[in-house]
C-alpha cells in the first residue's frame, strides 16, 4: 500500500475514533451523569431555579441537539465557561499546558535515556546476578504505590534536607526548570523508569539472538559495538514507538506530581475539576488529551513505517 493511501486511511480511522470519544464523553456527562442543574443550583434551589439553570445550559433541549452543540464546541475549540470559576475553559487549558509540558518533556527525555542505557546493560549481562538483581528490585519497586515515592521523596529531599523547594511555581520557564521542576522530574523519572526498563530489555533481548548479531560477532566486532550500534539500532524501532505511545500515559503520571508540588498544570486542574464537579472542564480536557493521544499514535505508526522499511502495515 502506498504511503499516502495509508496516511489517509489512518487519518480517517483517527477521526472516527475521535467522534467516538466525543460521543462517549457526551453520553457520560449528559446522560449517565444525571442532572447537573442539581449540582449547580445547590441544595436550596427551587423548581424555578432548577429550570432556569437547565435553560441556561441548554439542557431542556432534545439530546441530539445537545450532542450537535457539543460537536460544534469541539470543532470551534470553545467549550464554554468553567462552572467553578467562570473562566473560558479553553483559556484555562491553554494556560495550564505550559507547566505540564515543562514537567513532561524533561521527564520523557531523561526517562528514555536512563531506561535505554540500563536496559542495554542488563540485556548484555542477561542471566547474571546483576540482571536478576535489577529484575527483582524493579518488581518490588513497582509494587510500592507511586504515591509513597512522592510523599517520602517530597518529605525527605525537600522538607527535611531542604535540597529543593517543597512546592511552588514561577513565571519564567528557566527558573521553573532549574528550581521547581527538578524534584518532580526526578521523582517522576524514578517512578516510571522501572516498567520501561523491563519493556526495553525484552525488546533488546528479541534482537540479541538474531543472525545479524552472530554475523557481527563472527566479523570480530567488539561486544560494545555490537550492542550499542547493531542491536540498539534494531531495537530502536519498538522503543521509539513505545516512547511516543507512552507520552499520554506520562501526562497522567504527571497528574499526581502536579498535585503534590502545586504545579499549575493540566493534571492538577483535572483533579480540582473532579473535586468541584466542573463538567465542562473535564469534558474539554478529556477530548483534548484524546486528540493528543490519537495524533501521537498516528505519528508512532508513521515513524514505524519510516524507520523500518520491512514494515508495511496492512
Amino acid at each position, binding site marked *: 500500500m502506498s504511503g499516502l493511501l495509508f496516511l489517509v486511511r489512518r487519518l480517517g*480511522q483517527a477521526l*472516527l*475514533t*475521535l467522534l*467516538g*470519544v466525543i*460521543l*462517549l*464523553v457526551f453520553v*457520560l*456527562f449528559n446522560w*449517565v*451523569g*444525571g442532572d447537573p442543574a442539581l*449540582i449547580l443550583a445547590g441544595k436550596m434551589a427551587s423548581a424555578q431555579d432548577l429550570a432556569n439553570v437547565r435553560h441556561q445550559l441548554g439542557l431542556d433541549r432534545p439530546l441530539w441537539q445537545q450532542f450537535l452543540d457539543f460537536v460544534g464546541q469541539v470543532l470551534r475549540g470553545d467549550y464554554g465557561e468553567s462552572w467553578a470559576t467562570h473562566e473560558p475553559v479553553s483559556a484555562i487549558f491553554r494556560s495550564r499546558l505550559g507547566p505540564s509540558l515543562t514537567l513532561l518533556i524533561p521527564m520523557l527525555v531523561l526517562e528514555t535515556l536512563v531506561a535505554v542505557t540500563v536496559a542495554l546493560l542488563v540485556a548484555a549481562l542477561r542471566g547474571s546476578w546483576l540482571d536478576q538483581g535489577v529484575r527483582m528490585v524493579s*518488581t*518490588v519497586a*513497582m*509494587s*510500592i*504505590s*507511586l*504515591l*509513597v515515592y512522592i*510523599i*517520602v521523596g517530597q*518529605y525527605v529531599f525537600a*522538607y527535611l534536607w531542604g535540597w529543593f523547594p517543597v512546592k511552588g511555581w514561577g513565571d519564567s520557564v528557566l527558573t521553573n526548570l532549574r528550581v521547581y521542576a527538578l524534584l518532580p522530574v526526578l521523582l517522576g523519572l524514578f517512578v516510571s523508569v522501572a516498567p520501561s526498563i523491563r519493556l526495553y530489555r525484552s525488546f533488546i533481548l528479541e534482537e540479541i539472538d538474531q543472525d545479524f548479531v552472530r554475523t557481527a560477532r563472527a566479523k570480530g566486532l567488539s561486544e560494545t559495538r555490537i550492542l550499542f550500534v547493531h542491536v540498539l539500532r534494531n531495537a530502536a524501532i519498538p522503543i521509539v514507538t513505545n516512547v511516543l505511545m507512552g507520552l*499520554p*500515559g506520562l*501526562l*497522567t*503520571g504527571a*497528574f*499526581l506530581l502536579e*498535585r503534590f508540588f502545586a504545579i499549575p498544570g493540566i493534571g492538577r486542574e*483535572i*483533579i480540582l*475539576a*473532579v*473535586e468541584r*464537579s466542573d*463538567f465542562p472542564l*473535564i469534558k474539554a*480536557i*478529556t477530548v483534548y*488529551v*484524546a486528540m493528543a*493521544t*490519537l495524533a501521537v*499514535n498516528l505519528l508512532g505508526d508513521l515513524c514505524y513505517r519510516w524507520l523500518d522499511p520491512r514494515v508495511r502495515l496492512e
Partner: protein
Amino acid sequence: MTQIYSLKRSENAWSLALRRLWRDPVGRFSLGVVMGYLVLVGMVLAGWLGARWNDPVAVNYAPPTWCATAANRVTLPAGEAWDRSSVIPLYGWTDPLEPLWSEARAAAQRIQPEPVSYRLTLFFGADKWGRDVGQKVLKGTQTSVWVGLVAAFLATFIGTVLGALAGYYGRGVDDLLNGFYGVLTSIPYLLLVFAVAAVFQQKGVGTLILILGLTGWTGVFRLVRAEYLKHRTREYVLAAGALGASHGRRVWVHILPNVSHVILVQFSQNLVGFIKSEVILSFLGFGVPVSSVSWGSMLNEAQNELILGKWWQLGVTTVAMAIFVTALSLLTDALRDALDPRLNS
C-alpha cells in the same frame, strides 16, 4: 484381547499447570502469600479481624511499642470537659447554651461514666484519633483487595464476553467492538477513571468497583479477541460445528476452556492494576467514603502525619501493600510460565 491403547487418562491441563507452578519455588512462595492475604480478607469480611478499626483505643499518635519507653496506659477522668467556662472566654456574657450544658452535666452525674483508659503505645502505633494502625491496616487491606478482586472479576467478565464475540463473529460485531475499544484506549487510563469518577456522584465501594471494572476491561478484550480469532478456524471448532454444535456452544464450551489460561493471567494482572488505581483514587478522595478505610485513604492521612514525624501509618500501609502486590506480580509471572503450552516440553 490385546490392549492397543493406554486407558490411563492424560493429565488435566489445569492440574498439570498447578503442579508446574508448585515446582517453581517463586510460584509456590507467591501463591502462599497471596492465599494468606485472601484468607485475611475473608476473616475481616466475616468480622473476625479488624472490626474495631474505628475505635479510639490509644492516645493521639501513640507510637509503636518498640520505640516507646513510658508506661503503657493512661486513664483520663471522664467528664472533664463538661465545664466550658474554663475553655471558652465568655467576656461577661451568659453562655446561651448553659441550660443545655447543665442538663448534660446532671445526666453525666446520674450515670457516672467510667473513667476511660487509653493506651500510650500500640504495636503498630496509632493515628491522629488514637485508632490502632494495626486494626486499620487489616480493614484497609480488606477494602483494597476486595475492591480490586470484584472489579477484576467485572472487568474480566466484560472483556471476555466482548472479546469472544468480536473474535468469533468478526465482521460488523468486530468492527463495532473494536471501534469501542479504540475509543476507550485513546483516553489515558487514569484520565478515563477520573472522568467516570466525576460522573458518579455517589462515593462508595460499589461505585469504586464500577469505575474500575467499566474502564479496565480493554486489556482482557484485546487478548481474548486475538485468541478467538486464532481458534475459530481450528479443526476442533470446525469439527464441533460439523457435529451440529451451535455458535454459542462453540464459543463458550469448546473455545473458552482453550483460552482460559490467557484470561486467568489477565485477571491477575488486572488485579494488580486495580489495586494501584484504587489506592490513587482513594488517596485523592474519589474512592472510599470517610466511613471506611483503604490503603489509599490511609496513605492520605499518612501524608499529613509524616510532616509531624509520625511515620508509622505510612510504613505499615506501604509494607502491607508492597508485600501483596509483589507476591501478586510474581504469581502472575509464574502463572504465565506454568500455563504457557509452548513451554510444555
